[in-house]
């Protein structure tokens, strides 16, 4: 109905039928509708005329308010089409009655009034206006409750002649309903034991509406009263869904404006608690999941989200550009009887199917592999991944193969894709889909994703569509509502973290074109999304980059008590109720270094004590069998552990805590080989290391190096100095004793270790001891190394001194080593 009717232009009345052309509804109707002025005035009876006059006076206000909100473009067109007032009003009236008869809708009647009212008011000349308005009033009464209720009685009898029978019937029904509504509300209050006063609300609400369509459903109703806690249980027996639904809406309304609408004495928590239970009942959710959702969404969105989960998302498909084009495919499918549309600006290959007369998964085009049925949100991670040609791509959880095939089509069958999944049955669908779609560059494997960098690594890009709790796809699987709880979510999160770390390790950061990883889940829980991403950021050398998707909600940087890295803003969340696609989360990482950052806590602690122990065994290892070398690492750690318990005993002997440590070192380090010691020493002191390497010549070296070692170790073992001093006294004794010990095995070696730590004390006496040592060492060869070491005050590097001391203590019959 776009053509404007020009009433001045007359129809041709020629000899033939064809001379008269149809000009559209306006023209046609104009023939039936009463023309301006004359007909109307003729039609009106005397009583009607009087009423019209009355109405004109009285209804100037009422129709305005009542008509405005209910403006209907459809009927508005009609008045517009019918040009000037004279034609308009009668036309409207007639049209209106026709409309009313035909559609029985509220809107047409009042609608045209809204625009035209002002104009009509000015047209006093037309008697009909009042009538029209009156009829509008009555019609409005019948349908809406807009328009003056008060006028209804007047209009009823006035307009009864004008109204068609169906309109009269409709009006009657409306009146009945109004009565019934009031009754129902009364009944409710009687029935319900709870004191909820929702019941009066329907009545007053209608009252609101009658005051003019502008104020619909507004405050007038009595405030919602939350039932006492004790009475909430009664719902469980026979939940009346309608009532619960109403209550949900009321509580949401109250909470939205809590300050003014709250009931005295009731806390917000009570309202929320009630709301949660009602939502759980109405939408059949488990309490845990609903609680999580309440944390995630504001209340208005929450209800929308829950509603959206009841309804399935539209079916979408993705064109397989390896075999066809979207245009051609759309054409072919339309020919088969499918009603479809392009998906949106953001996708060049997507189509959304509204309805179809043929099964969409069984068309010849489907069998030929021209398209794939895929959710719209599943196309997004591949778009974010942006695979380039001739790359190596890993898809860690690929079943049923939609994303893998999309990757392949973007790469145009070049490069290599490794499609992996842990579930063997679902892999069959992957194989089937890939073959159907004509993908040739893919290898399909059946590994657990966590094994990945070990099996094969060094990929340019990795896509990880992690297994999740499925809270974003509730519309596909309603069982998720009830069977997910805390430990399911945490278990999923744990698995996702492991998979993500493996995926990061499989990416090659130095790849020329890549180094990217996309992590996505079909879940909306923060534990599975932002938390996992944050964990990965801490654990590996990756950073988040923009996904390239310009729509979607940003991920959270903070949620309840957790705080995430600020770059999490570049991740994207999608919801069913805002984007009309499955709930989804996408994060894109760039790996900037292939090295794996080690945790710093344990290593530094082990360093120095270990080196302590290491140095001491160093000379001893020369005398000892080499197989003990491997124990060196252990001994390092053991040294630390044993230091404390052993300290006491040593202290007794030497009054020296350090010496005890030395003892423990000795005992544990005894089996340390050269190599290990040297490696240990690397941490501590270079000179010591040199010493370690040259074990046979340790004695000489030790002598020479002892001063150096002392100096270098001074800083490290200043604490031990005091303790060492105590030991220094023993060194001479040790020296002598070491001779005898030279032939002895590990035990001896162990002893001096303890002493080495006390070696710092020995510093002072070193020169003397050194001279002694040299003499001694020359005699004894390698075992003397430790002795000299013990002489040096430099802690761990001075294993010989420790050794010596130990022997000393032995000689002194002191229980040095445990």
């Amino acid at each position: 109905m776009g053509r404007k009717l020009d009433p001045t232009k007359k129809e041709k009345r020629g000899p033939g039928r064809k001379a008269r052309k149809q000009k559209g509804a306006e023209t046609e109707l104009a023939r039936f509708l009463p023309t301006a002025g004359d007909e109307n005035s003729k039609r009106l009876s005397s009583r009607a005329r009087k009423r019209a006059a009355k109405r004109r006076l009285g209804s100037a206000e009422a129709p305005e308010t009542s008509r405005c909100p209910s403006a209907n473009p459809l009927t508005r067109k009609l008045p517009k089409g019918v040009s000037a007032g004279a034609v308009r009003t009668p036309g409207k009236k007639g049209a209106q009655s026709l409309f009313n008869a035909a559609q029985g809708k509220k809107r047409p009647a009042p609608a045209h009034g809204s625009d035209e009212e002002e104009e009509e008011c000015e047209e006093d000349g037309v008697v009909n206006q009042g009538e029209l308005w009156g009829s509008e009033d009555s019609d409005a009464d019948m349908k809406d409750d807009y328009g003056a209720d008060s006028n209804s009685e007047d209009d009823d009898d006035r307009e009864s002649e004008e109204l068609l029978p169906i309109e009269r019937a409709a009006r009657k029904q409306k009146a009945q309903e109004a009565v019934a509504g009031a009754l129902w509300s009364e009944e409710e209050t009687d029935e319900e034991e709870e004191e909820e006063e929702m019941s009066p609300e329907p009545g007053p609400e209608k009252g609101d509406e009658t005051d003019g369509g502008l104020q619909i459903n507004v405050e007038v109703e009595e405030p919602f009263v939350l039932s006492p806690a004790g009475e909430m249980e009664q719902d469980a027996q026979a939940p009346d869904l309608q009532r619960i639904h109403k209550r949900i809406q009321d509580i949401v309304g109250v909470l939205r404006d809590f300050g003014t609408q709250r009931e005295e004495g009731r806390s917000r928590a009570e309202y929320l608690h009630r709301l949660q239970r009602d939502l759980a009942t109405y939408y059949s959710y488990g309490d845990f999941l609903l609680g999580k959702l309440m944390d995630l969404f504001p209340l208005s969105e929450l209800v929308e989200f829950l509603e959206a989960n009841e309804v399935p998302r539209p079916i979408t498909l993705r064109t397989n550009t390896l075999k066809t084009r979207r245009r051609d495919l759309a054409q072919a499918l339309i020919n088969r009887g499918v009603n479809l549309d392009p998906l949106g600006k953001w996708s060049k290959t997507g189509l959304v199917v509204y309805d179809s007369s043929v099964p969409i998964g069984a068309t010849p085009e489907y069998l030929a592999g021209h398209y794939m049925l895929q959710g719209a949100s599943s196309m997004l991670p591949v778009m974010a991944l942006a695979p380039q040609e001739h790359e190596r791509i890993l898809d860690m959880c690929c079943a049923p193969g939609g994303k893998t095939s999309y990757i392949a089509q973007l790469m145009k069958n070049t490069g290599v894709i490794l499609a992996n999944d842990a579930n063997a049955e679902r892999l069959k669908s992957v194989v089937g889909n890939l073959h159907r779609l004509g993908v040739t560059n893919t290898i399909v494997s059946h590994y657990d994703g966590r094994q990945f960098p070990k099996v094969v690594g060094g990929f340019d890009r990795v896509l990880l569509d992690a297994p999740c709790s499925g809270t974003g796809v509730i519309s596909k699987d309603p069982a998720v509502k009830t069977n997910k709880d805390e430990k399911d979510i945490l278990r999923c999160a744990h698995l996702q973290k492991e998979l993500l770390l493996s995926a990061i390790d499989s990416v090659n950061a130095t790849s020329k074109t890549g180094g990217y990883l996309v992590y996505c889940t079909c879940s909306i829980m923060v534990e599975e999304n932002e938390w996992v991403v944050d964990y990965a950021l801490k654990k590996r050398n990756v950073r988040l980059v923009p996904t390239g998707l310009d729509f979607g909600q940003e991920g959270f940087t903070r949620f309840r008590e957790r705080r995430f890295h600020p770059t999490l803003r570049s991740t994207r969340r999608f919801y069913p109720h805002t984007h009309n696609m499955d709930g989804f989360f996408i994060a894109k990482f760039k790996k900037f270094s292939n090295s794996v950052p080690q945790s710093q806590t344990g290593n530094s602690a082990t360093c120095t004590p270990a080196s302590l122990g290491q140095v001491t065994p160093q000379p001893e290892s020369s005398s000892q069998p080499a197989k003990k070398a491997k124990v060196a690492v252990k001994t390092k750690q053991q040294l630390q552990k044993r230091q404390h318990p052993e300290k006491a005993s040593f202290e007794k002997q030497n009054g020296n805590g350090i010496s005890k440590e030395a003892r423990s070192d000795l005992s544990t380090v005894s089996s340390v080989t050269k190599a290990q010691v040297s490696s240990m020493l690397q941490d501590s002191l270079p000179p010591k290391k040199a010493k370690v390497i040259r074990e046979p010549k340790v004695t000489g070296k030790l002598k020479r190096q002892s001063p150096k070692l002392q100096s270098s170790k001074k800083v490290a073992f200043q604490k031990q100095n005091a303790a060492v001093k105590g030991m220094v006294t023993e060194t001479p004794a040790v020296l002598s004793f070491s001779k005898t010990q030279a032939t002895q095995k590990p035990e001896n070696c162990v002893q001096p270790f303890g002493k080495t730590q006390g070696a710092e004390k020995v510093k002072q006496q070193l020169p003397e001891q050194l001279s002694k040592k040299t003499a001694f060492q020359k005699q004894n060869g390698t075992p003397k190394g430790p002795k000299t070491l013990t002489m040096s005050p430099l802690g761990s590097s001075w294993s010989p001194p420790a050794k010596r001391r130990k022997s000393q203590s032995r000689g002194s019959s002191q229980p040095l080593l445990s």
Partner: protein
Amino acid sequence: MRPLTEEETRVMFEKIAKYIGENLQLLVDRPDGTYCFRLHNDRVYYVSEKILKLAANISGDKLVSLGTCFGKFTKTHKFRLHITALDYLAPYAKYKVWIKPGAEQSFLYGNHVLKSGLGRITENTSQYQGVVVYSMADIPLLYSAIIIYCIGSEAKDIQLPVAGSPDHSMDTQQRS
């Protein structure tokens, strides 16, 4: 995963040659790299060498599929060509048959095609010749396997085996 033995290669090539004749060499030496056949779990896969390199890292029991599956060897070591090979055979097919749109749907659901359903056909196609069936839009027919086409003097009846089993023996049915 292993390369095919001589015997297996011979059997397979014989089968393929029924449809594409001596164009077999084209399958192996392609302009975009060398392709080869590998056997894994009794199935023959057609892969390019690049993919082969990566696939070598995957242990045999975890490998499910690579490249394109051409067909499989049965227990009695006969080679059965699969529908997945259609895309590779179609360009090199020696004898082609086009069928009309009306007959296409019935053909897809497994029925025979009568002579009246034929659109075009390559000349000199002899009886029991292996052909590739196309739709009028030149699409190698969707999951319609390569059939053995039979031509009789009068009525022709193309017998279409179920998809993926191109080895049905054909009998011509003479129709008036």
